[in-house]
Structures are given as structure tokens and as C-alpha cells.
């Protein structure tokens, strides 16, 4: 409309504009009213309570009242302490050292502490850096110093080729000898140098067998007790899967992987076991040493991780070479809970199902991010401290836990109704799973938009995608019991849903992984994927970015939880990490990490 207004009836163009404006205002007023109506509901959420404690203000507040009143890095006691340390070191060595004043000014940004989800602990971001937190390093070391050897093949060789008898007594003797050689003791010649046992006090070995009678015949100090470590329902399945076979679990000394490389742990296990066989069975004068050596070191030896592709140089037991299913199996949080399909549990009692989720997904949410961070945060990218703050999003601020609360509530109120008609899983068809995933992701995105403090905590796009991918994948896997469906959901949520809603995803190639991931999620060709449980970070499209591996591990665990399975990919790995003598607590990892933040965690490999 143009020109001055005239007396009389208003022109139609103007009235229609006014009506549209009035309708929009009415809509806005209704929206504001709704928001006020539902604020009491928001205050009951875990995310509200945790973020309120972290930031010290209403987490829904859109206005930062302290803006421009903060004092840059001076507001952080941890940084100020580091600054003073850096100054003293610089004075001592005459070369400048750590000095936060050289960094870009942070202006009005709040340097907030982190609240550990599910606890009242509030810790500084620095204490959750993997170099400052020794518990995180212990987790990394405990994994890469572990190797599994099958004893059936060398036992057969000893019986057939060397004509020696293998009995529980000889096995005991062999294991006792092996404790000596693993700790760096010499057995073949007296004049060789031994390692100081104080340096290798965390080196030991144990056997695993599914045969209770056989285990009882062997000294119980040398075996992992499946019956004690797992709930009866889980132990039965694990023992049945492992059978009468005897596997030897070797924990090489931490100093070995620290001073040299993780691949040495694999070789150390083989050579020390061979030496122990030679001595324990008096094979030194026999002509079949090569057979014994091969049978022990190579015939049926399981390295946790395969070598990576050549340019990255990761050798045996490298984190990148460990299949995702193995990483999932390392998590032991729910070992003592009865084995049942998840839908049945949630249909019966939502509190119990939340406990299952806390101990299973919660455990994966601590172990998987920290372990994979050592690879893609350091060995792949060279190291950038921000990456450490990305991976801790699963167990800080109550954000991820809040979404798990909602998921549990949804499962209890809606999806678990299928139990009444005799089903435990929804059909694994995309059109059956797409809409639950879409709705869950919408809740996550809405929450992030509603909580400026959540946006501040998950400040990078990469952090938001990390949480969204996790939530979407876990939802699909819990519903269907299928890990492949979990992969569909991760890739669909990030590459399509988030892009549609927010127009972009994260930085550093997140889109590439998920756009390739959509067609590759069902591919069994090695260069494109393979079985979800056997995929790993040694794959060009799985590891472009920090945290991208974690959802792919979590969906495996969620699928096994939904099916009511005792393990994800390997019963052996499940039992290997259910060992009370391990330095890191794989059953309650968050307690170990909290001890690490306070300097109370005592690593066993550094005496």
C-alpha cells in the first residue's frame, strides 16, 4: 500500500496486515503464558538443578547480569595457581613458561566449574583434563597393557610334542612362574639383569575358564571368578559361552607401555609366557621350542587392538585398533544386576530401569569418551585442550542424564506397552524407529534452545552433536535391540534432523562422518563399515572428530541391554575387565575419576 490514508473504511491490505499482527501478538502472548505455566515443570528437571549449581544463577535466564564485571582468567583459582607455578618455573629455568595472559582475552565469559552428574561434586575443568587426572591415565594404561592368550594350544603342544603331562598342579606352577617373568624376573640364566619389582608391582596374570570344576582345582589367586563378579543370570551365560577353554589374561607392567609403546605389552605377554612354559615344564633341552613359542605367542593370542593403518603408526593394543564392541564390553557397571530385556524392566518399574541405564549407559558414558579421547584428541590431532572438555559432557552438568531421564520416562509410559502383547522389542524397520528418534532429538534441541546455560556448557557445535548423536542412537537401540538401527539414528539425527533445524552441525568434519554414515551404516564391506560391534576408530570415516566414536559405542551397549544380553561382542573381554585387581575401577568409573580430580587416586604403576 502506498500514499496517505483517507477517511472511511480502512483498505483491505492494511486490515489484513493488522489482523496478521494481532494474530502474531496473540500467538506470542500465548507462548509466553505457556512458558510461565511450564516453568515449575522445568524446575523439577535434573538439567535445571545441576546447571543452577554450576552457574549460580537461574539457568533459564536470558540475561547475564555479571557481563563485563568478570575479571578474565583471574576469576579461576585453578588458572591463577597455574600462573604462579609457571612464573616460578620460568624464574628457575630462565625461559618463559605457562602464562595465561598471552592467550586471547576472554572478555565477559564466565569460567564455570563442572558439576559431576548424579553427585554433589563440583570440580574445575582443569581437573578433568586427562593429564591432570591420573585416574583417566590409569584407565588408558589398564586397557593397553592387557593381552589375552589361549592356553589350550600350548598345552596341546606340550602334551603331544614334548610328552609332558598337564595337570592343575603344573598349571599352578606355570602361573606362579609367570607372575615372576611378567614382573621382569629372569628364569633362564642367573646372570641376566632383573627389573626392580617396585617398578612392576602392577604386573600380573590370571586365567579365565567357564568350567567351575577346573577353576576350583587351580589356585584361586590366579583366576578371575566369574561367579563373584557377575549376577548369577549373567555368570551362567558367560560361563556357557567361554566353556572349558582356558584363557590367560596378562597385565604387562604400566612402565612398559609408558616408557615404550602399547605394542610391547602384546609382545611382553607372549615372550614371558613362553619363558614361563619352558621353565615350568623343563623344556630347555627339547627340540620343540619353536612349536611352544609359536603356540604361546601367536597361535591363539588376542590383542585388544589391531594395528592401525600405517601412516598413523598405531601398533597392537592401540586404542584405535580396539573394536567398538570391545570398548563397550569393558564397561562393568551393571554386572551385578539381573539379566532381563530392558522393556520388561521399564514396564515393571521405572526407577529400576533408570538404575539399569545409570549403571550401563552411565558407565559407557565415562569409559568410552575418556579412552577414545586419547586417540582422536591426542594421537590423531596432536592435542588441543578443548577436546578434553568435549568428552566430559556425558557426565557433567546433568545435561545428558536429563535426556536419559526423559527417555526412561517415555519408555515406561509409552513404548513398554508392547510387553503386554508379548513383545520386548519394536520391529527393526526405519519407519517404526524414525519418529521416536525424531521426537527425542526435538526434545534435546528444544532444551538447548530453552537453556542458555546448556548452550554455554555445550558451547561448540561438536559438543551438541556429540550429545544429540548419543541420545538418538541410544533411543533407537533400546527400542529395537539392534546396533545397526542405532547407527541409522545417529547419522539421521546429525546429518538431517539437526541440519534441518539449525542449518548446521558441528565443526571438524562432523557432517562428513554422518553423511557417509547413512549409507555405510548397513554396509558390511570392510572399507565402509562392517559389523557395528567390530567397527572401530581405525576407519577413515569413523574418526574425523572428537567424540564421534562414543555414540557408536553406546548404541552397542544399548542394543545388548534391550535384548537382555550378558555381553556386547565378546564374553572374554567382559570377564577380563571384571577383575578386582585392576587399578582402575571399571564398575564405578565416575568415583575413580572424582578421586582423580581431588588427587586422591593412587595409580599402581608408579611407585
Amino acid at each position, binding site marked *: 500500500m502506498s500514499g496517505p490514508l483517507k477517511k472511511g473504511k480502512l483498505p483491505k491490505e492494511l486490515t489484513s496486515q493488522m489482523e496478521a499482527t494481532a494474530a502474531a501478538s496473540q500467538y506470542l502472548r500465548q507462548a509466553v503464558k505457556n512458558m510461565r505455566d511450564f516453568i515449575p515443570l522445568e524446575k523439577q528437571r535434573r538439567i535445571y538443578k545441576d546447571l543452577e549449581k554450576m552457574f549460580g544463577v537461574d539457568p533459564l535466564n536470558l540475561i547475564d547480569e555479571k557481563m563485563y564485571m568478570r575479571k578474565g582468567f583471574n576469576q579461576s583459582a585453578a588458572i591463577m595457581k597455574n600462573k604462579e607455578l609457571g612464573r616460578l618455573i620460568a624464574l628457575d629455568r630462565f625461559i618463559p613458561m605457562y602464562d595465561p595472559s598471552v592467550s586471547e582475552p576472554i572478555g565477559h565469559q564466565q569460567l564455570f566449574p563442572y558439576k559431576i552428574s548424579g553427585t554433589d561434586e563440583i570440580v574445575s575443568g582443569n581437573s578433568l583434563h586427562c593429564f591432570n587426572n591420573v585416574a583417566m591415565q590409569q584407565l588408558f594404561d589398564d586397557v593397553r597393557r592387557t593381552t589375552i592368550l589361549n592356553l589350550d594350544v600350548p598345552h596341546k603342544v606340550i602334551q603331544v610334542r614334548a610328552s609332558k603331562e598337564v595337570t592343575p598342579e603344573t598349571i599352578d606352577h606355570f602361573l606362579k612362574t609367570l607372575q615372576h617373568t611378567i614382573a621382569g624376573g629372569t628364569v633362564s640364566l642367573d646372570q641376566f639383569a632383573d627389573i626392580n619389582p617396585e617398578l612392576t608391582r602392577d604386573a600380573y596374570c590370571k586365567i579365565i575358564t567357564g568350567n567351575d570344576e577346573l577353576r576350583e582345582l587351580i589356585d584361586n589367586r590366579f583366576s578371575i571368578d566369574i561367579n563373584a563378579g557377575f549376577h548369577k543370570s549373567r555368570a551362567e551365560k558367560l560361563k556357557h559361552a567361554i566353556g572349558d577353554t582356558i584363557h590367560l589374561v596378562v597385565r604387562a607392567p604400566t612402565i612398559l607401555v609408558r616408557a615404550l609403546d602399547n605394542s610391547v605389552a602384546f609382545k611382553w605377554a607372549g615372550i614371558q609366557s613362553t619363558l614361563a612354559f619352558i621353565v615350568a615344564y623343563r623344556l630347555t633341552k627339547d627340540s620343540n621350542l619353536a612349536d611352544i613359542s609359536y603356540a604361546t605367542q601367536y597361535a591363539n593370542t588376542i590383542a585388544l587392538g589391531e594395528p592401525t593403518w600405517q601412516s598413523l603408526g598405531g601398533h597392537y593394543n592401540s586404542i584405535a585398533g580396539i573394536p567398538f564392541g570391545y570398548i563397550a564390553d569393558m564397561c562393568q557397571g551393571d554386572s551385578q544386576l539381573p539379566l532381563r530385556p530392558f522393556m520388561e524392566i521399564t514396564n515393571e518399574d521405572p526407577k529400576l530401569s533408570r538404575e539399569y541405564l545409570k549403571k550401563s549407559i552411565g558407565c559407557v558414558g565415562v569409559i568410552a569418551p575418556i579412552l577414545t579421547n586419547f586417540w582422536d584428541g591426542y594421537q590423531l590431532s596432536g592435542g588441543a585442550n578443548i577436546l578434553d572438555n568435549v568428552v566430559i559432557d556425558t557426565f557433567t552438568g546433568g545435561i545428558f542424564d536429563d535426556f536419559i531421564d526423559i527417555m526412561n520416562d517415555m519408555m515406561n509410559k509409552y513404548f513398554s506397552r508392547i510387553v503386554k*502383547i508379548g513383545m520386548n522389542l519394536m520391529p527393526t524397520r526405519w*519407519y517404526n524407529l524414525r*519418529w521416536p528418534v525424531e521426537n527425542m532429538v526435538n526434545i534435546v534441541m528444544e532444551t538447548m534452545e530453552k537453556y542458555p546455560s546448556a548452550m554455554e556448557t555445550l558451547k561448540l557445535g561438536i559438543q551438541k552433536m556429540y550429545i544429540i548423536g548419543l541420545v538418538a542412537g541410544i533411543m533407537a537401540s533400546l527400542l529395537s535391540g539392534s546396533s545397526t538401527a542405532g547407527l541409522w539414528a545417529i547419522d539421521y539425527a546429525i546429518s538431517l534432523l539437526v541440519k534441518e533445524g539449525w542449518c548446521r552441525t558441528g565443526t571438524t568434519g562432523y557432517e562428513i562422518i554422518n553423511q557417509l554414515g547413512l549409507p555405510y551404516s548397513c554396509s558390511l564391506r570392510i572399507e565402509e563399515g562392517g559389523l557395528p560391534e567390530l567397527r572401530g576408530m581405525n576407519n577413515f570415516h569413523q574418526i574425523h572428530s572428537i567424540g564421534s566414536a562414543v555414540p557408536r559405542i553406546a548404541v552397542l551397549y544399548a542394543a545388548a541391554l534391550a535384548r537382555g544380553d550378558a555381553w556386547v561382542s565378546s564374553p572374554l573381554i567382559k570377564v577380563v575387565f571384571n577383575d578386582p585387581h585392576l587399578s582402575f575401577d571399571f564398575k564405578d568409573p565416575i568415583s575413580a575419576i572424582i578421586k582423580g580430580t581431588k588427587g586422591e587416586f593412587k595409580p599402581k604403576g608408579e611407585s
Partner: protein
Amino acid sequence: MEDKNKKYVNEPWWKKEFKDGWWKEVSWIHPQDTEPSGVSLFIDYMLDKAIITPDAVKIASWIPHRLILLEIVHPLKGTERLSFMISPTSVTPGIPDVTPDVIVTYDYYDLAKFLIGREKDFTMSFWKGHSRIYGNLTALIDLADILEVALGKKIDEAKEARIKTWPVGYP
């Protein structure tokens, strides 16, 4: 011993549950010789059951404005479409003029099973994978509340059955 002459026919589930002339036994379906269409079945139910139930009208008044496109898929006759609006309530055959909050694709016999009272849960067909939705799940839950309350469910039960994040009236 297995009978080799036995024929294995994968008979659809609805053939066992819905015998010929099943609609003639239902009081609120308008008398007709052939199986009613999905649209007429739903409209008959809304007019003769839902609208005359005070609790269903009451719960509908708490729900924010919703526009639902209901696609009723008959296994033999194909798909019919129906636009269903809440606050204010209206039922119109065909697709709506604007984007709906949710598109609900419902199996005809699952819908019939619910409307005639053999299944008390409107959403069961979705959880077990027969039907699907595209869009806002809360809109489906709202629709389920109205229809289930019309079938005799108490309002308090309907409130309790919702997740904490989405109480009745949540936008």
C-alpha cells in the same frame, strides 16, 4: 509326522479378528451393506461417541490448537485421508490447507479394533509397529487422550499416563 499336504498360508491377523459383517454388530456405525470406509467409521465415532462424552470434550478444551492429518490405510482398499482439528474440534475428509502438526498413518483394522472397543490403547498400533507417525508426538498423545476418554478412560488416568515433560496442555 508332518502332514505334507497341509497348506501354509500366511493369513493376515485381521482376517481372524474381523469376520464378514463385523460392522453390523456395532451400534454407532450407520447401517450399511458394505464395510464402512475409514473416514465414515471415524466420523461416526466422533459424532456418536466422542462429542457426546463430557469428559472427552473437557480434555479437548485443555489441549492447545492441533491439526492432525489421519491417513487410514486399508490393506485391500488403499489409503483415505482425514483432517482432524482440536481446539476448536473439526473433522474434515481430505488433506488440510496448511502443514499439520502430525501425520498419523493408521492401519484400518487397528483403528476399527480401537474404535469398537476391542483395544483400549489408541497408540498400541504405533508401539507394535503397525502404524507410524510423522511429526509431533505430543499431538498424537493429545488425540489418544480424547479418544480414549471417550471410550471410558478417566481423565486422571489419562493425565498419569503422560510423561512428566509433556503434561496435558503442553504446546
